[in-house]
Each structure stands twice: as C-alpha cells, then as structure tokens.
C-alpha cells in the first residue's frame, strides 16, 4: 500500500510538471494581467506612474458622462445586431455544411476557414477597397442604375456592422455545423416521415437541440464584437465609435491607462454579464425542457 501511494504521488508530480508550462504561462501572462487591469482601474489619477491608493474616480467619470454611456449603449447594440446577423446568415450555411457529405464539404470548409484565419487588417482592408468610391460595390450599383454617381459607403454604422458580421460569420458557421452534426439525421427523418413538413421539423427538432451550442458560439461573438476596435477605427470613422476604439485611444493615444482600464473592465463585465444572463434565461430552461420531454 505504502509503495503504491508513493508511486501515485510520483505520478501526480509528473502530470503536474506536464501541465506547468501552459498553466504558468496563462496564470502569469493572462490572469495576472487581467488582475492588473482591475487594479489600475481603481487608481485615482490619469496615469499609472507613481500612482497609488484606491478610488472609484474612473468609474464615476465614465458613468457620469452621457457621451460615454451612449457609446457603451451603441456598442452593445452593435454587438447584438452583429450576433443576430451572424445567426440569420450563418445558420443556413452551417446547417447545410453539416448535412453535406465530407468529400463535398472540403472546398466550402476552406472558404470558411481561410477568412477566419486571415489577418483582420487584411480583411478590413479588403472591405475598404470593396466599399470605396471607386470600389466594386459602387461601380456595380452605378452600372445597375441604382446610384447615379458613386457614394460614400464607408465611415458609417452600416459599414461597421456589415464588416463585423463578415468577420464573425465563420465562428457561427462552425458552431452551427458542429452542433448540427451531433444531431442524428434519423431524428429529422423520423420527424419528416411523421408528416411534419420541413418547417415544423426544424422548429420541433433542430432548434431545441441546437440552441445551447449555438448560443455559446453567439456569446463568444458578442464579446469579440463588443471589444472590436480595428474595424470601427478603419471603416467606422468618427461617427461610428465603439468602446473598444475608445479604450484603444485612452491607452495608446491619450495614455490615460487608469481610465482605459476602467472602461475595459466595464466591457468585460457587460460581456460576462450577458453570457451569464443568456445561460440562466435561455440555455438552462431549454436544456431542462429537453430532459422533461
């Protein structure tokens, strides 16, 4: 018995050693930095150099300014619209991918994965070219007679939303695909053979079974969309500001790290709050409902 506990101790150390590099990297360079951001946000002044003490000054500054609040509200609205757009456009694609035979899926999968892995700046630059005054969209619209002369399609809210949706579409497509692939196609066939048409089958079988997985994908998109700053900076212009860009300016332009930190934390709280709300309001009741049925 004694030798066996000694051996299991030794093995435990061995496994811990294997975990250590990754675990330490994430603790020291992710968890601690996140803690640091929280700490900085409670500094009273507008700089971290030589700062000490705790104060709510940054948070007061944020919530007492209607401009900041409207930017936050707008950011949340953007993120929600982006989620909705991704869902509406991405669901059919992910669903059909899941039901495709693997051999035929290949090229389509590449069309989803390459934009996902392609550098964000390159994608956004592509949109700048597409939507520019002499870009493809303007030329097509003029050629079709919809526009009489090329218009400024960039630097407005719609452009930001469109580009964000395109950026996050691969995420939702892959989430939907993964979830739907786990739904037994026989379940759907069974439902169809029971004389339920496609719409009913969809509502009764596919949606309840896939909702939890898809909402997980959507909440990831919400967090990423709400904190986006590259896209709003490049295609949004001054009229379409988002919190991410605001924070970026505070950190890199104004160098007001405490205020940037407070805003970053508010952003984080909004994201996680929404995720928690989604979880309790939709995912839990839904999965519970599944067990009851």
């Amino acid at each position, binding site marked *: *018995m004694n*030798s*066996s506990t000694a*051996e299991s101790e030794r093995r435990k150390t061995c496994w811990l050693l294997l975990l250590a590099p990754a675990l330490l990297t994430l603790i020291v360079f992710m968890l601690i930095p996140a803690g640091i951001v929280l700490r900085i946000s409670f500094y009273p002044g507008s700089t971290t150099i030589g700062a000490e003490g705790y104060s709510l000054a940054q948070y007061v500054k944020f919530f007492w300014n209607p401009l900041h609040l409207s930017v936050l509200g707008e950011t949340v609205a953007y993120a929600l619209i982006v989620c909705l757009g991704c869902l509406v456009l991405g669901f059919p694609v992910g669903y059909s991918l899941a039901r495709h035979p693997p051999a035929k899926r290949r090229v389509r999968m590449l069309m989803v994965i390459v934009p996902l892995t392609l550098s964000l700046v390159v994608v956004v630059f592509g949109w700048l070219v597409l939507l520019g005054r002499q870009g493809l969209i303007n030329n097509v619209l003029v050629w079709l007679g919809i526009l009489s002369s090329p218009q400024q399609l960039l630097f407005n809210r719609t452009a930001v939303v469109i580009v964000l949706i395109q950026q996050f579409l691969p995420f939702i497509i892959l989430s939907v695909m993964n979830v739907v692939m786990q739904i037994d196609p026989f379940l759907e066939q069974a439902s169809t053979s029971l004389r339920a048409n496609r719409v009913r089958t969809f509502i009764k079988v596919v949606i309840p079974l896939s909702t939890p997985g898809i909402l997980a994908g959507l909440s990831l998109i919400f967090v990423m969309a709400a904190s986006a700053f590259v896209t709003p900076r490049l295609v949004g212009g001054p009229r379409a500001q988002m919190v991410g860009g605001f924070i970026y300016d505070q950190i890199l332009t104004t160098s007001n790290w405490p205020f940037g930190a407070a805003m970053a934390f508010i952003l984080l709280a909004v994201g996680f709050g929404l995720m928690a709300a989604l979880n309790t309001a939709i995912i839990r009741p839904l999965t519970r409902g599944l067990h009851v049925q």
Partner: protein
Amino acid sequence: MQILAQDALASGLQRETIVVFRNLRKDYGALTVVPDFSLEIRRGELVCLLGPSGCGKTTTLRMLAGFISPTSGEILIEGQNVTRVPAYRRDVGIVFQNYALFPHMTVAKNVEYGLVNIGMKRQERASRVQDMLRRVELQHLAERYPRELSGGQQQRVALARALALQPKVLLLDEPFSNLDAQLRVRLRDDLHSLIRNLKMTTLFVTHDQDEALTLADRIVVMNKGAAEQVGSPEEIYDAPATRFVAEFVGQCSLLEGQILDGGEFRTDDGLKLPAFGQVGKATAVIRPENVKKAREMPGVPARRARIETSGYHGALTRLQLRLGGSKLIMDTQFPVGQKPKPGEQIDIAIDPVAVRFVPPVQ
C-alpha cells in the same frame, strides 16, 4: 516407451507454476470491479477467463499485463512479484481485441518493434522476424501496412508481434470477437495448434463459451469479479458448481426442488430423480442432450411430456418440453419427415447419471 517418458516430462513441466494471482482486488473509487481473485497458471497451460461483459475478466487480464495496477493483492510471474513492475518489464505478450497494430509501420516493422526495444542486433532481428512471419504464414505480406490486411491476417500479425519476444505468458483479449463466424472457427483452430506447438503459457479472455470449451485446458468462469468455478472444460460443462455456471456455459434445464433422505430429488410438482448430496433445497441441472427418448434408456422410468416448440438446429432438433409444471429442453435426432410438431406428446427419460445438483437460488 520414449513417448511415455516424454509425456511424463511434459506433465512434470506442467506442474511448474508460471503465473500466480493472489487475493487480487481492484477498486475504482467506491466501485469494486474485482473483489478477491486468486488463480495459478502452470507452464504450457491454456487458461480461459470466461464470463459476461463487465464481470472483471478484462480488468484481471490488464492487471497481469501491467496496464492497470491492483488496489491490493499480488501478481507473480515465475516466482517474481511483478505487482509494481511496469508493463514494459514484465515479459508478457498481449494480443488485443482490435489487434492494436501500429498503423504507421509495415507488418515486418510491427513484428520487429519489440526486438528493437530489447536491443537485439539487426541481423538477428531480421531472422527472428522472418521466422515469426513464417510461423503465421505471412512472409509474403511483410511489407504491407496493417490497413491492407484482412482481419484474420491482422490477428496473425498481432500474434507474431507478441510471440517474437518469447514472452513468459501470452495474453489474448477477446481475440476472435472482431471476426465473422466462419473465419472465427478456422482461426481458432490455427491459433490453438500454434500455441500448442510453441507450448506457450496462455491466458485468454472471452465471453464466448464455445471458444472457451474448445480452446482451454482450464476455464475460470467469472461472475461479478470473482471466480465461480475453475476446472477443465468437461468439469465446467458436465459438473457445474453453481447455477450461474450451469446457465452461462451451454444450454440447460433448471428444476427447483428438494433432495430428500434416501437419495431422491423431488421437484415441487412431483417429478422424481435419483440424487446424492446434501439433504435440503437444491436445483437440478439437466443438459439438453441428457434428456432422451424413452426407448433409448430402457432401465429408466419413462415420462410423457408435451412438446411446446420444436426448433431445427442442423443435425439436432431442439424441443422445448413441458413435463408437469416443469420446462425441459431436449436435443435429439429424428429420421427425415418424422419430426414431431408442437402440441404432440413424447415419451422421454432423463439420464440419471448426468443430472447435477447445484445450490438453489436464495
């Protein structure tokens, strides 16, 4: 004379114990998979662990291989306590249910793998690999990859790979369950003669009683992690020690009743059989082939039974009979066209010598 001497030598060798399981126990948290298992395996013996799935037979096998370490108890191989010896120093060969051939190596490389690990010289390795492949008749496939082989060929590669190291014990984990029925019987015979020729000490695990009965020198019938009975195939089949063994190995009819003073067994509805053994409640075990047509057993009182179903099993016909309140299974033969139909009556006799009595259900 010489033959006799060889036999004596062989049986003398057989007495030497190679593997000992002593009070082996395995717990997974609160779940006890093997409560207390003891067994000795002698040199050259082919022992089978037989039991339903989840009876702990595979866990026992894996403890011997060294993949699972027991919670308590000991395992000895050739007298050496290997309980805490890692798998790679145990000298145990194993053939897995799915063969576990290395998919990225050719057949020859698979067989050579263990030889490289023990540091054998290249030339010696090559000749050993050739030799092993010849034994399993696969020389012509040496450069193929496992996925290019049939199931039977894969099994032979796995066997050659395990045997190349000349292990002290060979372990086979459900070796035939991945093969179709016809191939299974042929490969079983091949494997049997190969292991016999090599005088390999072998422990194998199966849930298939036919496999156990045809291959093993000794069968360990396992139930809930414990050995219910250990014995030769004949002992297991003809003289089951418990109701579980009787039901799990082969077909049988079970009659509940009492053994009375004066050597008589009487069922609750009055069927009488001669009996010996402890007075009291008992269950009679009757194999289908020991229920005979009355005229085949002249000295035994005949009884009239009603045929409930009649099934055709090739050479034999299997009848389900009702005799008073009891049900009996009978395997017998009928001339062409004279097979009785359900509802008809038949006169039968139960071979009294072949009836066994086991403890009743609690």
